[in-house]
């Protein structure tokens, strides 16, 4: 590994020197030729989210949306636009949690909330009739992943996973971090390296290591699902060819891992689909960067390849719809037909001229675990599908509370909503 890394570095340096040389040559040439005032300069490398764009997309106005890092107050928002099925109710559960991302539930009812661009982990607790927001940690490095198991909070930062034992008894004075695994981010380069974190039924922590760009050849440990045993630190690859997954859960009956995945950008408005995956055996490879959505060869990396080499997704969720948090419903509050259904938070498309998503979808499966349907469960954030921005809120994660109601985080506004049901 070490040798190949060094080789890579020296190749990069080479490319750098070559292009600097080429530029110098161009400047020198134009000086000799007494060229007009305009100097010949190589165009700058485009921002990383533009990587993979074709020449005819060069003037595309599409761009990602940044959250309001101060949070926005519910009084400023059109909450009356939110819609849930008959019998359900949606309300603001808490606000003032800037960039609320992933959610985890403690044994004693604490809700842990993570950040991606900001550096905090929050704990939200009900004390009597008061709901308190506690800033648990600050100064963390992309702490997108939070998981809770048997009294311990685990946090996945960009580069490491740490544990905090007995956290719910020490919310005002949290213990020092104990490292589960470190050095997960040796390259420190731009890319999909924020992590979702979940505790598996096998007692191992599952997380994603995404691709280093939109459509690039990943190295051996990128574009994978991985797991680490928190007791031993042993790391294993669970699945490969996964561009970036930021949501996962285990089927309550089969105990199989399911996860969401973001496909590449800049093929077209309608291709490829983002996907839902089911891990039914070891060493599955879902195709990135060669094949997308199980049946679409990549225009560049797909040359000479076949989608038959790879495993297909369980479902296509929609192009650029950005599925994030995903959980199976096992609570007693919602009607019986919701048992073992999946709820998937769609962060919403940016790489599409007509926007869609920005909702929570309900996904149903049959007894064999085959996906049978998908319909919107919480919607209303999308208000103008041609707008910039097109939405006023963005769902990130879903979390079932003990009473069977469901929380939905919204990083755009720093708000968490609660959905409940009453006959």
């Amino acid at each position, binding site marked *: 590994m070490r040798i190949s890394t060094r080789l890579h570095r020296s190749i990069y340096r080479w490319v750098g020197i070559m292009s600097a040389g080429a530029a110098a040559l161009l400047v020198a040439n134009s000086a000799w030729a007494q060229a007009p*005032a*305009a100097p010949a*300069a*190589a*165009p*700058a*490398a*485009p*921002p*990383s*989210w*533009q990587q993979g764009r074709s020449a005819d997309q060069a003037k595309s106005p599409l*761009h990602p*949306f*940044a959250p*309001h*890092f*101060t*949070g*926005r*107050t*519910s*009084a*400023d928002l059109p*909450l*009356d636009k*939110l*819609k*849930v099925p008959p019998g359900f*109710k*949606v*309300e*603001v*559960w*808490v*606000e*003032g949690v*800037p960039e609320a991302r992933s959610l985890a539930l403690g044994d004693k009812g604490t809700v842990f909330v993570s950040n991606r*661009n*900001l*550096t905090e982990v929050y704990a939200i607790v009900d004390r009597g*009739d*008061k*709901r*308190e*927001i*506690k*800033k648990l940690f600050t100064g963390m490095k992309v702490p997108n992943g939070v998981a809770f198991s048997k009294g311990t909070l685990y946090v996945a930062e960009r580069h490491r996973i740490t544990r905090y034992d007995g956290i719910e008894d020490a919310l005002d004075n949290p213990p020092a971090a104990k490292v589960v695994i470190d050095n997960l981010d040796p390259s420190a380069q*731009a890319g999909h390296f924020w992590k979702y974190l979940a505790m598996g039924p096998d007692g191992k922590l599952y997380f994603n290591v995404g691709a280093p760009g939109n459509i690039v050849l990943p190295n051996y440990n990128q574009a994978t699902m991985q797991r680490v045993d928190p007791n031993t630190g042993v790391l294993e690859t669970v699945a490969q060819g996964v561009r970036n997954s930021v949501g996962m859960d285990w089927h309550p009956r089969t105990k199989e891992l399911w996860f969401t995945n973001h496909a590449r950008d800049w093929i077209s408005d309608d291709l490829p689909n983002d996907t839902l995956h089911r891990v039914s055996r070891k060493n599955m490879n879902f195709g990135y960067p060669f094949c997308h959505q199980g049946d679409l060869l990549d225009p560049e990396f797909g040359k000479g390849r076949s989608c038959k080499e790879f495993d297909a997704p369980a479902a296509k969720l929609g192009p650029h719809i950005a599925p994030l948090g995903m959980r199976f419903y096992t609570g007693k509050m919602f009607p019986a037909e919701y048992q073992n259904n999946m709820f998937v938070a769609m962060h919403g498309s940016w790489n599409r001229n007509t926007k869609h998503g920005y909702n929570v979808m309900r996904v149903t499966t049959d007894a064999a675990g085959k996906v049978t349907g998908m319909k919107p469960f919480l919607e209303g954030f999308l208000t103008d599908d041609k707008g*910039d*921005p097109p939405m006023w809120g963005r769902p990130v994660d879903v979390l079932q509370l003990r009473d069977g109601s469901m929380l939905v985080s919204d990083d755009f506004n720093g708000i968490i909503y609660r959905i409940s049901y009453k006959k």
Partner: protein
Amino acid sequence: MIFVAVVRVAVGLLLAVTLPVSVLAADMAAGMQKAQTCVACHGPEGNSASPAIPSLAGQPAQFIATQLVMFREGRRKDAQMSPFATGLANADLNNLAAYFAAQKLVLPTREAPSATAEVGARLAQQFNCTQCHGPALMGQQHIPRLAGQQMDYLKTQLLGFKASTRFDMDGQMTSAVQALSEADIATLADYLSALK
């Protein structure tokens, strides 16, 4: 039905949350009051008269709030500015952002030399400035307006990005300016600061 329930919860929260969390809408009047400290350097209504200090008038609210958060959290640093952001609550930042976004930018009276204007406009296309800052470089959402901004301030930011010392949320600006020469940066700053 939903709306009524939501409002009731929001009112409940005002009493319940112990961190200083406001559930009131962004408050322009409160923003104006807080802004009295800012205008000492940033100029009346956020129209700077100093080439090194940016104008805030007419910048997108989300851009102002984002930068204030980053100053407060110590991720963007400036010896003069950083102390003023310390201790401000998110609600203060939202109010300040709403206030300055609503002010009118006094347009530059200076014209850039015609050669500079021509080369500057070309550089802004070639180096993708218009991709995010908009075709007229007026900014949008979390991305600042460049048209009519102070020249030395623009130059300092671009040089900071080039040296990877200026705060950059996602690395876009740092990568975008790498191929700019110092002469290009001077031309762009000259062109942008005179742009109406």
